[in-house]
């Protein structure tokens, strides 16, 4: 009986400006294998299906349990985390591509630093006076914690941005992840001291207004963040803020 195998097609690019090539690989099947374990298998024996020696595939990964946000890629046409992509649940050949909205570094690696820059621009932090002992933090009711906690689970994988039709170079849209963080910090008893600044930031070009409400973000988010809810809530807050601005400036 022929040994069961898994076929892969990987979109590769040796550098940001290099030509695109598709390499095909075939691996023996193991129960429980996922895309990452397959990429490792390829690295241990980087030979394409036609016997051509090639380089191991470059990709980002770290925790492998869907909490660090590193290994987002396009698998069979859909952006998702590679570590949780079980081969058993994928159609073959398994097609791997880098995220399409971010600059390519190499193969499946892309540069997603724009998200971290965006988090800076909306001041996504609680402005502490200092780390010295100032006693316990503000009391927060469990209901509030339960509303904030899901937003705090964002892993910065950028999948919400990848799948968003509005996130592209001409809109410069900030994306759902950052808007969700604005909501998170605006709701914190201390964090909300920067609320107006954050709302004003989100009124800039590429801000919340660019959202087209296609709702792909909330569909694709691997951590099921309530992203559309955050966009609506912040959408209301920016409107209220802009009306306030109209009458106070």
């Amino acid at each position: 009986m022929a040994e069961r195998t898994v076929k892969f097609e990987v979109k590769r690019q040796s550098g940001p400006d290099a030509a695109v090539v598709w390499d095909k690989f075939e691996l023996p099947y193991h129960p429980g294998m996922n895309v990452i374990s397959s990429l490792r298998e390829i690295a241990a024996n980087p030979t394409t299906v036609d016997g051509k020696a090639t380089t191991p595939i470059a990709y980002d990964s770290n925790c492998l349990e869907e909490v660090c946000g590193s290994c987002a890629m396009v698998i069979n046409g859909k952006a998702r985390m590679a570590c949780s992509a079980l081969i058993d649940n994928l159609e073959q050949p398994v097609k791997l591509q880098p995220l399409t909205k971010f600059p390519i570094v190499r193969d499946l690696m892309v540069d997603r630093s724009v998200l971290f820059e965006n988090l800076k621009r909306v001041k996504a932090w609680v402005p502490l006076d200092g780390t010295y002992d100032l006693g316990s933090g503000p009391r927060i009711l469990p209901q509030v914690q339960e509303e904030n906690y899901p937003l705090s689970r964002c892993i910065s994988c950028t999948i919400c941005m990848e799948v968003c039709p509005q996130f592209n170079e001409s809109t410069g849209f900030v994306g759902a992840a950052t808007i969700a963080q604005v909501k998170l910090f605006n709701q914190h008893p201390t964090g909300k001291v920067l609320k107006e600044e954050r709302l004003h930031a989100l009124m800039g070009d590429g801000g919340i207004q660019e959202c087209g409400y296609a709702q792909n973000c909330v569909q694709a988010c691997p951590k099921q963040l309530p992203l559309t809810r955050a966009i609506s809530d912040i959408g209301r807050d920016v409107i209220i803020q802009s009306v306030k601005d109209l009458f106070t400036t």
Partner: protein
Amino acid sequence: MATAVSPAVTPPTRGVQPLQAGEGHSFLLRRLHSLSGIVPIGAFLVEHFVSNFEALKGPVAYAQQVRFLNALPFVRVLEWTFIFLPLLYHAIYGLYIWFRGKSNVVYYPWAGNWMYVAQRWTGMIAFIYIGQHVWRQRFSGVSLPEHPGAAFHKVQMELSNPWILAFYAIAIIATCWHFAYGVWLFSAKWGITPGDKARRKMGYVCAALGIALVAIGLSSLYAFVGPWYKNAPADLTPAQITNGESTSSAPSNEPPASK
């Protein structure tokens, strides 16, 4: 020794650029686009549909409605400020929005994503339709503000072409769709319906609104091409409009809504 090293992390030079925090006017323009779709354009749309519904009562009633509207104070100013200019803005900025989005419904065929695409196509259909509709009905041929009595006949002539009739029907559906989903989008984006439940309920409301408008629109259309008011007079005199008399041949059938 310790010369400043070039920063290791800079904003990416390629790809989507970071948020321009607090800069630019796109917020105002985009929100104006969103708002203009509801008020005044949406409001006018409803008014226009209701007015046209008068056609079911026949040429005279229709002419009365046209005359009434054209007799409003500052009607030309109102017309330009609350209809034509907002429409033009909504349409052109809408095209700009469409042009800048990159649809990916092929890869992510989800309901919301389909609606995103539909909103753009229906907007486009509405734009083309409204453009020709305004040109042909308002700015060419018999001037209806001056001859409200000619309104029914003018529309009837237009719709006598089956292609135009089909175009009107499609455009009415597209426009109502665009408006109803626009209301839904507006309430979602402006934070009126933030929760999933609220948005679902709003979905039912907007669907009902859309269906009602389509029903009104299509039945008005039927008034012009149906059997009731065949061969409406080319024009009615002001007296005829005022007195509610029609010199044309009597309607072949009494319409249900006729007085």
